[in-house]
């Protein structure tokens, strides 16, 4: 569904990304892992046409459609058709002056829905992320971080995107809320058959969520494997070090069970 071949990015003569390739099938999750400054965020931006990258080919196949060559698509615009973003800090991602419902509704502004339809769509999106409908009237400052992040999720979800980009979606939240939101993410992903690209630091989360792993270091690909293989037999020494460090911090247990979207995974 999203296929990138030999993506290169140079800024001010400095190489930022070198020969990054990956191929992500529909309905799967790619986790991008790497230390700060390794080019994770630049990769997300480059794939969305927000940075002057060069590549051999970059194709995107939307649902029920022909593959699009993005070189053509990006003449005069950016982004991928029908994709959405969820950012790290919900409080800076949401407009503090707008009620959550308004922020969520803006995501489908282009569909020009009638006000009743829009209201119903917003309530449905809130229900999908397990927020009560009256949350639509609250402002970001009046809800908890977890609820605000769920609202961001609803804002992405309401547009029924094919592909959602997450930039560290859980790192601003505490341990219990992280797991609850991960279960919600899994549930909506399977229900609407969405594809996720997630940038994260947390190898424990990656082990529990990802289908594919892409490890970056200094702009170069250190590993591009299925998650299962990555945690059993990592491709490089650097990846082994990374896994050992995560174990040392207690964030990565010996056995990891994949996050399930079933209601049972939510404790309260």
């Amino acid at each position, binding site marked *: 569904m999203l296929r990138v071949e030999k993506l290169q990015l140079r800024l001010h003569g400095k190489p930022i990304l070198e020969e990054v390739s990956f191929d992500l099938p529909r309905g799967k999750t790619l986790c991008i892992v790497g230390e700060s400054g390794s080019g994770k965020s630049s990769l997300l931006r480059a794939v969305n046409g927000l940075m002057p990258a060069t590549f051999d080919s970059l194709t995107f196949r939307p649902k029920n459609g022909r593959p699009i060559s993005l070189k053509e698509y990006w003449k005069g615009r950016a982004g991928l058709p029908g994709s959405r973003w969820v950012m790290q800090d919900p409080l800076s991602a949401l407009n503090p002056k707008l009620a959550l419902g308004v922020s969520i509704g803006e995501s489908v502004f282009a569909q020009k829905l009638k006000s009743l339809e829009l209201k119903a769509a917003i309530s449905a999106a809130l229900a999908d992320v397990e927020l009560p409908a009256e949350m639509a009237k609250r402002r970001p400052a009046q809800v908890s971080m977890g609820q605000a992040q769920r609202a961001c999720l609803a804002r992405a979800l309401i547009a029924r995107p094919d592909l959602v980009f997450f930039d560290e979606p859980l790192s601003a939240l505490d341990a219990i809320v992280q797991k609850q939101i991960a279960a919600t993410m899994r549930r909506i992903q399977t229900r609407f058959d969405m594809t996720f690209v997630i940038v994260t630091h947390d190898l424990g*989360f990656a*082990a529990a969520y990802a289908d594919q792993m892409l490890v970056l270091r200094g702009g170069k690909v250190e590993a591009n494997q299925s998650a299962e293989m990555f945690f059993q037999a990592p491709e490089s020494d650097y990846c082994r070090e990374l896994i050992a460090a995560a174990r*040392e911090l*207690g964030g990565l*247990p010996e056995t990891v069970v994949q996050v399930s979207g079933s209601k*049972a995974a939510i404790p309260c």
Partner: protein
Amino acid sequence: MQTEAKSLLNVQNLSARIGRQVVLDDVSFDVDKGECVAIVGGSGAGKSTLLRSLMGLRRPAEPVGGLLTFDGVKREFGSPGRTGKPKGIAYVPQNPDHGFDPLKRLEWQWRQTARAVTGSKDFSTSQQVLLKELGLGSFHGRFPHQWSRGMQQRLLVGMALLGEPNLLILDEPTSALDPLIAAQVLRSVMAYAHKHDVALLIVTHDLALAAQHANRTAIMTSGQVVEFGETRALLREPETTYGQLLVNHRNWNFSAHQKATNSVAAE
């Protein structure tokens, strides 16, 4: 009494308020000499308020009662006359961005700290040894942003250790760093603490991290310490529901526990 000799920090019945809102409610715990204690809780549990009270800061939350015994010296939390941090406690902020002035060279900031603590601006050999132990070299006239975050964080630890504290407080030591560097920083701090018999108080939302390093763990929620005891015992048999929730969710392999709680709920 033997326990007195072993105990380094003892907090009894600390309460604090912001206006009328109670943010800390009857918090008691203690840290022994050379021990590593973790305080674990979600956002809004009162962890930061507890730290600020220990440091002698009275805003935004004002301590209204409680007794602090540090290294044999007692002080009332509630008495307004005495403010300031007890000597022998050092603090490492969560984020290196908060710890350094971005416009001043690292060496200048280090010397200022050294002057405040030791009274002399000299870059003594003991300081060089300290930096070496943390895996840092010389400053080369660098500014904070020219060092990696891991190095910055270790330098902050170094600055905290300049005053040769008995107790080092680490506020979320791993959350601003990626795992490779976080593990490195923790390893150097642990090695130093072990060698020089410094007690550690780690404040974190991550029980998995506490499980890995702490001898004893306190679990906080809504301003109260609900459990405090040996980390291992606590992981095996948490007594409160919140404790169970945290223990079950400390790792990403929670579905096994989930089945158990689910069947209980079904009954």
